[in-house]
């Protein structure tokens, strides 16, 4: 039985890693199409990808978008998490479910809804639309991580600080905040990844002139099949894995992702 389980687990692991490994290896192809394994190896598609304005512009857009959305969503999530954990009011459970709603509404519906609503309000600015959508999709992860961090450190510590003469606000600043800081930072890192990688929620919101990197890749592969996309992808994988390692070290990935 142990053997069988190990075999199944190995198959699952191979399945999960297969497309990722293939992309990374194929990115070093020399030919005009990605090969696995490459017949001849080269870094030229990396040079090509970095020289492609469609990618670099989109990468900058995605990076800015991720940073702005995360910085906007974090204070919102902090306030909401505090209210949920430390407040006593009817319907807390329902409210918590509502705060996580953006996770469960199909992203394509969110994207469309923001498109039509902003059009109705006369907002034509691509950046504004995208920031709105990305705040929405990053926010639930932040709320969840911060709630998890807050519930782990119980009120007792803050109360102890208060009996030692600390004003509630100082108790919070000196005791609670340092304790949840790793959780908040991990949540922010994950939010950055979520925003940077997201496709569906941006689907209807970009324009010909302002694109995000995942959508630029999607557009590119519709007409081209050269390995420059593999090169870009490999760089994305490296960034994601680095962030994942940091999060795992700080608080554990599972607490951030939920489940």
């Amino acid at each position, binding site marked *: *039985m142990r053997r069988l*389980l*190990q075999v*199944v*687990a190995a198959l*699952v*692991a191979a*399945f*999960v890693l*297969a*497309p*990722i*490994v*293939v*992309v990374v290896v194929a990115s070093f192809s020399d030919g005009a199409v990605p090969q*696995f394994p490459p017949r001849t190896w080269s870094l030229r598609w990396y040079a090509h990808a970095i020289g492609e304005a469609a990618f670099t512009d989109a990468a900058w857009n995605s990076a800015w978008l991720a940073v702005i959305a995360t910085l906007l969503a974090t204070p*919102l*999530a902090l*306030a*909401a998490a*505090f*209210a949920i954990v*430390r*407040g*006593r009011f009817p319907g807390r459970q329902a*409210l918590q*479910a509502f*705060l996580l*709603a953006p996770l*469960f*509404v*199909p*992203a*394509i*519906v*969110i994207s*469309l*809804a*923001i498109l*039509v609503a*902003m059009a109705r309000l006369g907002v034509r600015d691509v950046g504004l639309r995208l920031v*709105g*959508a990305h705040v*929405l999709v990053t926010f639930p992860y932040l709320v969840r991580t911060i709630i998890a961090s807050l519930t782990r450190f119980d009120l007792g510590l803050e109360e102890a600080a208060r009996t030692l003469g600390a004003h509630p606000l100082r108790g919070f600043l000196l005791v609670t905040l340092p304790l949840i800081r790793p959780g908040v930072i991990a949540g922010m890192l994950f939010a950055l990844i979520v925003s*940077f*990688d*997201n*496709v569906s929620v941006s689907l209807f919101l970009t324009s010909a002139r302002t694109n995000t990197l*995942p959508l630029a*890749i*999607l557009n590119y*592969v519709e007409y081209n099949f050269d390995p420059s996309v*593999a090169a870009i992808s490999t760089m994305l994988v490296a960034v*994601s894995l680095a*962030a*994942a390692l940091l999060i*795992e070290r700080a608080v554990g*990935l*599972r607490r951030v992702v939920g*489940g």
Partner: protein
Amino acid sequence: MLSRPATFAMLAPVLLVLILLLVLPVGYLISFSVLARGTGPQTLGAFTMANYGRLFGDTYYLALFGRTLWLSALTTAIAALAGTCFAWFMWQSGRRWRGPLTILILSPLLISIVVTSYGWVVLLGRNGAINTALEALGLISAPLRLIHNDFGIVVGLVHVVIPFMVLCVLAALERIEAVLGEAAMTLGAQPWRVLWHVILPLAMPGVAAGTTIVFCLSLSAYVTPAVLGGSGPNFVTTMIYDLFITQYDWPFGAAVAAVLLATALAIVILYQRLLARLGAEA
């Protein structure tokens, strides 16, 4: 404890954002679904239920919904089996392996779906690694069609959703006290009976939770069917895209989106109920 006014003050901005960016826009989008198509490409007409009538009256659209549900169910079943096995493996493996295994199984979630979809194309495409290898070995004479069909969609979807399944089942397994398995052993249960009578029943809530989440995610997926599915609308989401972008039929597209949203939310509510019931038992 926070006072009522303080609590409200902290919640107000969040609620405002969610209402302005989610509730009202989605409501506004759905309101299109009860309007007739106007004369111009993006103009709207009078109140009508015809869009829903068309959706539920035309077997083409019903079949597309049915297909989406079927492929999502298939994906969910495969993910449940594979995910449960993997979660069980993680649960049994030592502390030292937990971190690496977690990153491994969560990698589809951490890496952009554009990257993994592209990876499947490179691996499974007409001239992809698998077809090349099989041809080189002389096992096939013509390339196998591994993507741009339903097989491709299911492969891609299972890959996307498996992290969620593993996380749910693992969480349930970790709530099981190790001493229960030992107790069963002292009572005379062989290892497989410990698994069957004790571990699996206790992990079931996790499997159930994972199943609902995964089904909901599969249903709402866009990139996977768009990249790995066959040509033309092959999934509800790709049809919505087609209706809005190619056909400019916003009212009908909104009706399809509304039904998709309703299905997803119904599943989530079911899931919350399930969690609440399990919570009450524990």
